[in-house]
């Protein structure tokens, strides 16, 4: 455990060094969030039926998504890990008395947290002082906030577990770009980061609900705004735990299997 804690800590400290990257990220996310809300607002003004989420709920959803992008986006990646695999520098990680899965898991967790810490506060602060339809709402009550925090944390653990498959796939494909595009695009859509899940046609919702991706982003953000009621949220937390356990076990098994066949590149 000490190993993982230490890796996590070092990666966290390392990530906090990159202030310029964080600043650029904040600017991009802020612009992006603004644009999305403007587009949805235009749709809402001319909507014929009742939209599945209120505009206020949607604004909160989008700001949370932008603020915690580093925690929930599957495409948010550790390039260092990719180069480690494709160049064969992984040789060093393999001669450590540590379980590789846990080692990388801690690294990825540290990377995401450090990025999120630097980015979320400025975005949330500004979003809280925007004029009415653009402003981020407070959660309806304290328990919604607690549930949201728990859901976001489990979502983070889950997204790291999912992203482990991406890194494992690079052992086979040797091409981070390919894995990234396929995983990133599909994962992002299924997590409700492209459009919120309630806006999808019901047949697609059925598919999305059966997969783990939506539990990383769509679920916590909708718990925040109260779009998902408390009792449903509690069940959701349990579902998250089940996904988390099964995906980490599967990932660990798959990594072990891959390692037995791995070819460390380069002389």
């Amino acid at each position, binding site marked *: 455990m000490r190993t993982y804690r*230490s890796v996590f800590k070092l990666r966290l400290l390392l990530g906090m060094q990159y202030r310029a990257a964080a600043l650029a990220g904040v600017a991009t996310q802020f612009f992006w969030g603004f644009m999305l809300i403007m587009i949805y607002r235009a749709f809402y003004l001319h909507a014929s039926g009742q939209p599945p989420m209120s505009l206020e709920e949607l604004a909160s959803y989008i700001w949370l998504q932008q603020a915690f992008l580093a925690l929930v986006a599957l495409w948010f990646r550790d390039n260092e890990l990719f180069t480690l695999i494709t160049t064969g520098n992984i*040789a060093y990680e393999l001669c450590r008395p540590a379980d590789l899965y846990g080692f990388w898991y801690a690294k990825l967790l540290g990377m995401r947290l450090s990025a999120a810490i630097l980015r979320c506060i400025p975005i949330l602060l500004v979003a809280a002082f925007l004029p009415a339809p653009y402003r981020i709402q407070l959660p309806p009550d304290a328990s919604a906030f607690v549930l949201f925090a728990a859901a976001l944390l489990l979502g983070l653990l889950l997204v790291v577990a999912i992203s482990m498959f991406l890194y494992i796939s690079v052992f086979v494909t040797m091409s981070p770009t390919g894995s990234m595009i396929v995983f990133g695009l599909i994962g992002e859509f299924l997590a409700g980061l492209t459009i919120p899940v309630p806006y999808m046609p019901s047949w697609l919702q059925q598919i999305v609900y059966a997969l783990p991706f939506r539990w990383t982003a769509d679920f916590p953000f909708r718990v925040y705004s109260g779009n998902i009621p408390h009792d449903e949220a509690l069940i959701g937390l349990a579902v998250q735990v089940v996904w988390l356990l099964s995906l980490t076990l599967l990932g660990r098994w798959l990594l072990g299997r891959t390692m037995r066949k*791995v070819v*460390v590149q380069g002389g």
Partner: protein
Amino acid sequence: MIAVERLSKSFKVAKRRTGLWQAAKALFVREHTLVRALSDISFTIRPGEIVGYIGPNGAGKSTTIKIMSGILVPDEGRCDVFGFTPWKDRVEYVRNIGVVFGQRTQLWWDVPVIDSFELLKDIYRIPKTEYKANVDMLVDTLQLESIVHTPVRQLSLGQRMRCEIAASLLHGPRLLFLDEPTIGLDAVSKIAVRKFVKTINKEKGVTVILTTHDMNDIEALADRILLIGGGSLLYDGTLQSLRSRFGTRRTITIDYRETADRLDLPGVEVASWTPERAVLHVDTERATVSETIALLSSRVELKDVAVEAQPIEEIIVQLYKEHRI
């Protein structure tokens, strides 16, 4: 204590001929060739030895090191180090070894060296007092005081390599693998690295397995060499016996008062000749050095004589030629 028996490993390599049509074809059908990286390698190493593991590029040196350090799984064969099988008992086994890959880095690029050391302390669960003693010793002998607080990206190659070596010894391993530790280093850094390896071998009894292309490394360090070529072990023995077996040539360089004598002597080959200076190769199986010099001094008026043994590089090249590798 280190026993390798009949180790074999093959790699599947995708082959493709050049050209667009071939590239398109390769999308559907791929041709593979099986490259035999190691076949039937066996040797044993005693504690406290420094073994030089040499061979041309692609001979299988790194593959052997990777198998012995538990990174790669061989196709066949047995390997026993301190009672462990490296690829089976990986996590327990690697506590006992240190590895330096000269062409790779284990230090975190953007943080000071000491942070990487601290991380290794936690990974290997090194007790605090032992860690401190080891760091002090390493920083002192490798002269790292001024650089341990610098981010790795700002270090020169020589400085980084010294830190890499320190990093792989923090946990006090009994066995150290050095895979081309002096590659790309300048003369001063090379000598520093060699001296250090010698020291830890003498004082701490660390067994060292070293691969390198620099024969000076081998000459300075290794008591014993293993020569590998084309995946097979070709020679196992001391450097001296290698020398006496293959290094039968001596080079004599002489300066003399101007003469027209072309110096053709029995058992001597004239490598270069000018009226004032000549370089001669003496085959010691046909003529002794002293006889040759005596003969020479009777023929010309010698001003200066220098005798050199055959450089180890040349012996190795000869050995490669003999085995056609």
